[in-house]
């Protein structure tokens, strides 16, 4: 199991495209949006500099992107190249496979967050002032919740063409309602209600509390939402992946 986790980390860090999309692209988006001074064109009043608001949001967005986009496509490759089929005839179960992959990607998510926060500290003087010890738990719940989306999409889609609309709809929807680039409080009430039960806004909010100590009254609720997605998503992903992909 440990070797499989290490294997997934090796695979990730040897894949230049994965490094670009998972680590470098979110950092680039953060820098561009910070320099664009978006707070001047949107209503923004939550007692936090916009760069700090954005930084926590981009961290959540990067975790979502890693789970949904990169996992969906690499798992379709694994299936089409019969990597999964070959593994399925060993004693390694589909559950063990997903567990090891989730642990490896959780470690990547920790690196993502550390890298982004490092950039925020150096470029914009961002300083943690929240309950930072909650951060690993929040990242664990958030990363697995989004990885589960990737596992399910890659199991249901036959190929890249079929996966593309699924990832686009899920990714865009979650990004838009995710409290990432602007506060969801700016959205109509019915969209705010939808956002409240999705994992993206919960992750953004929980990240902000952990890093900067704001939105504390929402923190327990956000953790519950993430835990719900973690548990239900894991159960669904395990069942669908075993039935449709790992064979």
């Amino acid at each position, binding site marked *: 199991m440990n070797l499989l986790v290490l*294997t997934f980390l*090796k695979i990730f860090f040897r894949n230049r495209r994965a490094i670009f999309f998972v680590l470098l692209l979110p950092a680039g988006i953060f820098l561009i949006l910070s320099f664009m001074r978006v707070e001047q064109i949107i209503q923004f009043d939550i007692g936090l500099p916009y760069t700090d608001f954005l930084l926590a949001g981009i961290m959540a967005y990067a975790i979502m992107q890693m789970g949904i986009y990169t996992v969906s496509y690499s798992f379709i490759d694994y299936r089409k*190249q019969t990597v999964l089929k*070959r593994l*399925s*005839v060993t004693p390694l179960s589909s559950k063990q496979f997903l567990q090891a992959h989730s642990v490896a990607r959780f470690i990547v998510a920790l690196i993502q967050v550390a890298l982004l926060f490092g950039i925020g500290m150096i470029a914009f003087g961002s300083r943690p002032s929240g309950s930072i010890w909650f951060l690993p738990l929040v990242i664990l719940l958030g990363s697995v919740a989004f990885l589960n989306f990737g596992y399910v999409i890659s199991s249901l889609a036959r190929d890249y063409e079929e996966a593309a609309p699924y990832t686009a709809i899920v990714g865009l929807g979650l990004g838009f309602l995710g409290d990432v680039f602007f506060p969801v409080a700016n959205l109509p009430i019915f969209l705010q209600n939808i956002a409240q039960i999705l994992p993206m806004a919960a992750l953004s909010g929980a990240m902000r509390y952990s890093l900067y100590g704001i939105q504390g009254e929402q923190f327990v609720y956000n953790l519950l939402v993430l835990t719900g997605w973690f548990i239900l998503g894991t159960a669904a992903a395990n069942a669908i992946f075993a039935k449709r992909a790992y064979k």
Partner: protein
Amino acid sequence: MAVIEVKNLKKSFANVEAVKGLSFEVKEGEIFGLLGPNGAGKTTTLEILEGLKDPDSGEVKIFNHEGNSASARDKIGIVLQQSGFFEYLTIEELLRLFASFYKKTVPLADLIEQFELGKILHSRYHELSGGQKQRFVLAIALIHQPKLLFLDEPTIGLDPQVRQKFWDIIINLQENGMTIILTTHYMEEAEILCDRVAIIDKGKIIASDRPVKLINSLGIVSRIKFMSSKPINVAELEDLSGVLNARRDRYTYDLETDKPEVALRELLEWEKQYNGKIFNLQVQQATLEDVFLKLTGHSLGE
């Protein structure tokens, strides 16, 4: 003792019945071949035995356990028709990874030596030649010292020299006590490797026995094949002494015979009064291909 017992196995996909009630046994220490053309149901049958597909009905026992149980899985090595591996890992890393899935494994150094993997340890799977890939795939299948080996079309796409080297490895494994079940559509491969074969066509076993016995059951010893510069009436060839049956396949004439020396002499005599010319004359021993042709009325490639 039967290592594999299959009774009345059935499997359909959509409206296609791929396997129509197959029954057979594989005994300990033998090489058993499932032989047939593409689409005959060989791979589906093997994938059911490997636990990759569930049968619609029928019974499968491996090492006396129902289906491909977890306890049986430790004793089974599998070479799939097409195997994929993580593209960013080296051969050495893949060997270590697969070894980590099992409780007991062969020392990797022994495996590397046995399958001549030393020079490719730092290569990646997609960089290997066909022969190297096949040796690696076999090494992975044998990493946990299984007692039973499944080989699905193991030499497809390999050049003859590599194929023969692969046969040497398989025979050596059998000599060391391994039970092997393989699918192939190469009749020559089945004749050389298999102790017994089941010939499958359209999801059914149409014959099962030792290859020699199946060939002898035809009553023909050889076939004489040639081409002709002009069309020949096949009935004329059937009248030749020693010829049991004659047929024409486009430009090639094919005579079945139980007395090849008599039939050949007669043919050459007949040619003297024939105003055309025969060429590419070959005398061939009867093969499993002939058995298949006789039983189904079509060749393996059709």
